[in-house]
């Protein structure tokens, strides 16, 4: 008998699970659910750490689990489990039904069975054999950390790599039945430089999705030079003076500010909470007319790209802001149900233990027409933020971002490096002050932590000029 013909009592990856999934969904509908969704996951991950000239950590991990979500009207109950047997999954459905206190099941929804299987994994099954081996990864990481040893001021050198391979099956009572394999690889380099009482650090991270060969192609020498130069430039930097000033934010990871300060406010989860100032601003001007912002999941190889989201929908390219006018919110199934904004293929979660939520994918400000020099030349006294560190946004929309590598701008020229700068503001007030966009759009990978856990994203922008912002310093 072919494996696909076996009526299994347990979810088995690589086999046809349609009958079992239908049975479980039907069970939930029979008990009175309006909607049943099953997300099943199998992971195979590895990470490697090189410190100085040695491999100091190799950490493989694997796991499996299921997340079951039941909707009743606008409420939802979510149960996660490691038990993928029929018994375990049905118990989870019962638990979710019980949590929602569903007792009146007279108005029963109709479940007509699952649609034909959309299998996005067919061309991806070979990936696991194509990714670099631990030996290969270790060798390249050690070469990379060696490249960082460019003078005796470098105190520590680190290179890290991680690979996540995730197989998913998604089935729901609207007939959705899909499978996919996702591959994410990321590599980072960082150094600490030290000379007497002076200290600085430099770091860069690179990442890709769905490209098993990408690590082999990574230009470690260029990356090492970049990290080294950054740490040397900042080693003797003075602390920046605090104040209000114009700033130019570099491209690539500079886009983290738009992601954190504005992008999150355009997720329907924020409308549900009543915490976005943009809730009733569709088709209104919320940014300077030079700003067009996009969120999409389709750029090939980008860290936030997907074949299908975690609710079984193909991702779309969403123009969030067009010439300063708000055009769209980022929405998932619950967002559509509760706010009326159509799904955008943005239902994402870290893993099976989180319910999907509206989350960004590849989010960036579109390129403009200016050169980087145009932006800098337009400022007589300000700050150039070449490399951004992390940041956060408070419950009332105020953001705070550390500048990892900054330079003063005096009379249209870059001058001395400065450290300790923090950019402080509110999206609503800062967006109209982005007055110039460069022509050098680039993306950078990152991890975004929010309601449904940590997900892979890219941020991006060309160089942009903000006319005035609060810079924290000393």
């Amino acid at each position, binding site marked *: 008998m072919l494996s696909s013909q076996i009526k299994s009592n347990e979810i088995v990856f690589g086999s046809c699970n349609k009958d079992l999934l239908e049975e479980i969904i039907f069970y939930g509908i029979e008990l009175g659910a309006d909607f049943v969704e099953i997300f099943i996951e199998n992971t195979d991950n590895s990470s490697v750490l090189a410190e100085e000239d040695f491999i100091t950590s190799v950490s493989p*991990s694997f796991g499996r689990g299921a997340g079951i979500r039941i909707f009743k009207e606008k409420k939802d*109950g979510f149960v996660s489990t490691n*038990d993928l047997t029929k018994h375990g999954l049905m118990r989870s459905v019962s638990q979710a039904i019980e949590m929602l206190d569903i007792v009146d099941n007279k108005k029963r929804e109709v479940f007509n069975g699952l649609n034909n299987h959309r299998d996005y994994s067919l061309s991806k099954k070979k990936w696991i054999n194509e990714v670099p081996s*631990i030996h290969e990864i270790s060798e390249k990481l050690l070469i990379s950390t060696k490249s960082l040893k460019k003078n005796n001021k470098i105190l520590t050198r680190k290179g890290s790599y991680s690979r996540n391979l995730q197989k998913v099956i998604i089935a729901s009572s609207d007939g959705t039945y899909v499978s996919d394999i996702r591959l994410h690889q990321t590599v980072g380099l960082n150094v600490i430089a030290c000379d007497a009482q002076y200290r600085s650090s430099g770091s860069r991270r690179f990442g890709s999705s769905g490209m098993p060969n990408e690590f082999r192609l990574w230009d470690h020498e260029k990356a090492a030079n970049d990290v080294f130069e950054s740490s040397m430039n900042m080693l003797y930097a003075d602390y920046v003076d605090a104040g209000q000033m114009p700033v130019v934010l570099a491209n690539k990871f500079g886009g983290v500010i738009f992601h954190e300060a504005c992008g999150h406010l355009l997720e329907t989860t924020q409308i549900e909470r*009543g*915490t976005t100032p943009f809730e009733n601003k569709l088709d209104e001007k919320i940014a300077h007319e030079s700003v067009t912002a996009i969120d999409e999941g389709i750029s090939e190889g980008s860290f936030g790209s997907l074949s299908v989201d975690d609710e079984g929908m193909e991702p779309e390219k969403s123009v969030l802001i067009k010439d300063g006018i708000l055009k769209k919110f980022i929405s998932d199934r619950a967002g559509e149900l509760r706010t009326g904004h159509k799904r955008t293929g943005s239902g994402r979660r870290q893993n099976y233990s989180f319910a999907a939520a509206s989350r960004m994918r590849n989010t960036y400000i579109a390129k403009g027409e200016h050169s980087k020099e145009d932006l800098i030349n337009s400022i007589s006294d300000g700050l150039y933020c070449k490399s951004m560190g992390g940041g*956060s946004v408070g*419950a009332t929309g105020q953001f705070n971002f550390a500048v990892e590598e900054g330079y003063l701008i005096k009379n249209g020229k870059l001058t001395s490096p400065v450290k300790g700068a923090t950019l402080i503001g509110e999206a609503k007030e800062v967006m109209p002050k982005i007055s110039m966009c460069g022509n050098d759009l680039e993306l950078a990978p990152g991890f975004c932590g929010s309601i449904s856990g940590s997900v892979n994203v890219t941020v991006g922008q060309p160089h942009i000029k903000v006319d005035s912002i609060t810079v924290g310093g000393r």
Partner: protein
Amino acid sequence: MNSREITTQISKAADFLNLKKWDYGASFSNDYSVQVDKGEAKQLKASQKQILTLRVWNESNLVGITTTSDISESGIIKALNQANIASDFGNENEKTEFSPLAKDPIEVKDSKKRNPVGIKKLLTLLREAEVKLIESHKSIKSVPYNGLSESFYERVYANSDGAFRSYTKSQAALYLYARAEEKNKKPRSSGSVKLGNGVEDLDIESCIKDASNKTISHLNYSSIKTDKYLICFSPEAFLTIINAFSSMFNARSILDGVSLSNKNSIGEKLSTEALNIYDDGLHEKNISSSPFDGEGTPTKKLCLINKGRIENFLHSESTARIFKTIPTGHAGLGSKVSVSPDWIVVEKSEKNSDLKTSLDHSTYEGEFVYIEELNAIHAGVRASQGSFSLPFDGWLYKNGKKISIEAATVAGDIKYLLKNIVNIESSQEVTTSGISPHIWVDELSITGDA
């Protein structure tokens, strides 16, 4: 399978694979949580989780590791095999061993393990709390961030040398973050978190009151002039700073070159003689206490700063061996074993004559900035460089009045901060991350909008 059966299963599988030396740490949990939105259930969540981390030593005594959520027989065999393969990449320069204390007796305090109250009860309690918080003041329009949860878990450590430790525990948490809005003013938000052994131990009323008072107290705000100010840190804010720079006491960080301290820093004067800091994971107020760490070493109270001088570092098995001391019970199981503090206790030592005791946050009439809560720690702290630049919630006290600060950051250097402590108030307060009195620091930079 229960934890004893899993240990037996691992032992059998290891024998089958001819793996002589292994250990593992595991956790098994059942969690339930609810969120509400204006009286309606928003998301109800239950999860059953199991995580197993296995380490295997090869014939060269190099260690490899694997983590899995699959604790079936085949999952355990696969994990042992993967760990064995990973051991080929084990770190020859810093070998790991079992903790010499992994079989020592552990102090298991009365865990006050509670029974689940169930989702429906959680929902009822949270709905009531949301209503009370909104009704507490006309400007409070919503409670956008809220949650009530209960967890029941078991943690286990065992090794091939016969060590076996296990403990079970329950824990509940409530958080309420209110949002207040007034015409022609920016919305303000603040909140409170409470922990307990179980839901019945949570002080829900005080969580509502704290969240309400904090939020309302920030309604009338003003920007602050960028300058240097005398600062009073709340207990919570001071503990946040100490935890953020705990790499100063962390032997792992010292060995990795990312600490401000070095191997010879024991005895170094960091602060006024009036300052004592301990790590006390077994403190009776620590709801999350664990009687052993990831390597099975018993948790214990450790003095980190004694009369202003560094007294001890936090250690794992391998860092302790390198420093020629004993593990302190602060290890986290991993391919590279991590080290971290459990529960920080800050107190005034008996050598406190140099303190300016007139500085008391409830009576002092001069100008100062009160920092209630520090934010964005992951972004604004450079632990390896000692610097910080952090947004905060707080007030400016001036001319006998206090006014909420609209938006500002405090920036400085941790060593400067510790050296410039000018008062340590007498009364300690319990927070979710430790215990501390109010701490006064002279001259830190504040950046504001004014």
